[in-house]
């Protein structure tokens, strides 16, 4: 989805910033660079992360079998040693084997450290364990120089924050944390192009994608209250408040996308887009997942991220199911609502095509 080197160089050439003969020289430079590059696709990173997780579980299993887990202090101490040793080693040494070994050791260390703190305090000190997880995750996020580890630590921090806010503030805390999570995803990815080189720029992608993966789970969990969420039911923000917060975020992202297209928000197109999103939010006021998913969809396409688009599409499908399941209508009314809304979308599609491709009946529109 993103521009190629050719696209960028041709644009620079058109702006007079590089000479025409830059392309052949760029070709030669890239041949050399590719031979030394260690860039890998996302699924290879996912494979490496999965391997590290499984290895970490087996490492924890070893200490479980030999009885170290019976002493919380030993668990915590060993976990801390593993984290420090793995981080230090990763910072100075390279190679694929060491990368995997240090990642597995560090994950095992995090598991034992946080598990030891949790076991020491018992269930009354869940917030201590959650706080420790957030602190450990934050330190490793900054110090461990690996994008997969940073992504996993973002997941850890996001989930531990949910637990901590639930312990401290009940359902209201969890929902405020969800809103903060969504805000962070949007702001980080919208600001990413303007960030200068450095640690903050390197943290944006793993953190934003980690939070984007957690957001659907945290939003949807709120909509399926069970025994574990009994407190959430009693002291929670109204769902409409959460929806309005997420709507504001989606409108902001849409505004940024329109600005990039030189579209005035106050113009015709802007009014249609804002109106449609607001209408969607009002129609799904009690199911914030729908507008949250829509916001991720807009953000994912605006930032040209296939991964974020994939998350958003899956989120939207589940959110749609939750919405229609939640409607207090008969099956007949639901059926008519679905067919009606579907026909509206199909009608909008035809209208949209004719507006954007007027007088071009023989042109293929994909």
């Amino acid at each position, binding site marked *: 989805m*993103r*521009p*190629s*080197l*050719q*696209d960028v*160089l041709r644009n*620079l050439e058109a702006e007079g*910033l*590089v000479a025409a003969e*830059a392309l052949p*020289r*760029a070709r030669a430079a*890239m041949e050399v*660079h590719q031979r030394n*590059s260690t*860039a*890998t696709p996302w*699924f*290879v990173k996912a*494979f490496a992360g999965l*391997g*590290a997780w*499984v290895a970490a579980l*087996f*490492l924890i*299993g*070893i200490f479980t*079998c*030999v009885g170290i887990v019976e002493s919380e202090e030993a668990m915590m101490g060993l976990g801390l040693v593993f984290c420090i040793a793995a981080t230090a080693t990763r910072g100075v040494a390279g190679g*694929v084997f060491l*990368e*995997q*070994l240090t990642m597995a050791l560090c994950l095992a260390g995090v598991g034992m450290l946080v598990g030891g703190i949790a076991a020491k305090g018992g269930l009354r000190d869940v917030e201590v364990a959650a706080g420790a997880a957030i602190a450990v995750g934050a330190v490793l996020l900054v110090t461990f120089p690996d994008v997969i580890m940073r992504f996993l630590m973002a997941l850890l921090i996001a989930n531990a924050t949910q637990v901590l806010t639930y312990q401290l503030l009940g359902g209201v805390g969890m929902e405020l944390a969800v809103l903060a999570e969504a805000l962070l995803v949007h702001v980080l990815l919208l600001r990413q192009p303007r960030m200068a080189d450095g640690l903050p720029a390197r943290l944006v992608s793993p953190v934003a994608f980690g939070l984007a993966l957690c957001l659907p789970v945290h939003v949807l969990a709120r909509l399926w209250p069970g025994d574990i969420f009994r407190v959430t039911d009693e002291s929670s923000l109204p769902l409409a408040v959460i929806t309005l917060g997420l709507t504001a975020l989606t409108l902001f992202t849409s505004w940024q*996308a329109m600005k*990039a*297209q030189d579209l005035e928000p106050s113009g015709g197109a802007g009014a249609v887009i804002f109106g449609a999103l607001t209408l969607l939010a009002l129609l799904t006021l009690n199911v914030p997942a729908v507008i949250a998913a829509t916001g991720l*969809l807009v953000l994912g*396409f*605006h930032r*040209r991220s*296939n*991964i974020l688009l994939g998350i958003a599409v899956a989120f939207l499908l589940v959110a*749609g199911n939750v919405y229609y399941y939640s409607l207090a209508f008969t*099956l007949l009314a639901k*059926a008519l609502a679905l*067919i009606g809304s*579907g026909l*509206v*979308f199909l*009608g*909008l*599609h035809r209208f*949209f*095509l004719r507006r*954007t491709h007027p007088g071009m*009946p023989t042109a*293929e*529109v*994909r």
Partner: protein
Amino acid sequence: MPKDILDLEATPERLQALVDAGVLPPPYLRRARDLALAPPSREDWQRFLATTLIALGSLLVLSGVIYFFAYNWAGLHRFAKLGLIGLGITGCTLAAVGSGPLSQRFGHFGLLAATVLVGPLLAVYGQAYQTGADAFELFVGWAALILPWVAVSRFSPLWLLLLVLVDVGAVLVWKQLFDGADDLFTWWVVGIALFNGFAWATYEHFANLRVPWLQARGMARVFACMTVAPLLVVSIGFVVVPRSTGPAGTVAVVLLLATFAAEYALHRHLGGELFLLTLGALCAMTLVTTVIGHASLESQRFDDVAFTFFVLSIAIIAQVALAVWWLRREARATGTTEES
């Protein structure tokens, strides 16, 4: 390797490499990054919105039809039931044909809707006339009836639907015709894998012949996963309980190794298909780890589970390290991008 190396995505690392090589003046790196991170064009947004609207619209209408029949199931006369579904199929097909060149995507989704509706039509027919048909006859019949549409549609998701219907039908045949016979199970799974593999091979063959609508790699990867997954399950069973899997287990292992070879050959032929290599590496790692774990547990007393865990953790780390090293080497050699 892509046709032109400059067709690679303009990542910050590559732009910095151009600066280091003296191709891009350092003061213009910022501008180059702005261009590389530029948002989609207005035309891209229009295509995206059009696709989203039609996908959501089709999905909502189809879901509504299903809910409608769920509500009216008992009350409708059988002719009304059959007539309504028939009307839906006819309408979707006409819409697909009538959309013509204006919206190929609209036509594709119309045809998808029509093929999905064939299933409820058969189900209602079986219910209305109490034909006593087994469930497998529904799925096999559904697949047979939509085959002509799938053949002319030039829309690969329809091929996936057909494959899923055949697979489900095959499982139901085993359960209903052969009473779920245990001795047939592994052979049945291998058979399904072979059929899925045939679909995958067919896709790759016609993609190689440059059929335009088969150039996207997404569907080929799905077919590859559907081929490899059943073979892996039987192979793991062969390692853990060889008596239960019998000769089918051996065949599954051999076929799994054959898929590894096919994945590598495709990767080389296409100049970079790292997803398939990763899939193969994951399967190989799973199988090897299962062998090591099983052998370790079989040879040790129960008290020595810790030793098994130690061996497995080292084995996994070593395998992942080796696989990632190899995949990165292949990525460098073929120029596969970060988001391939």
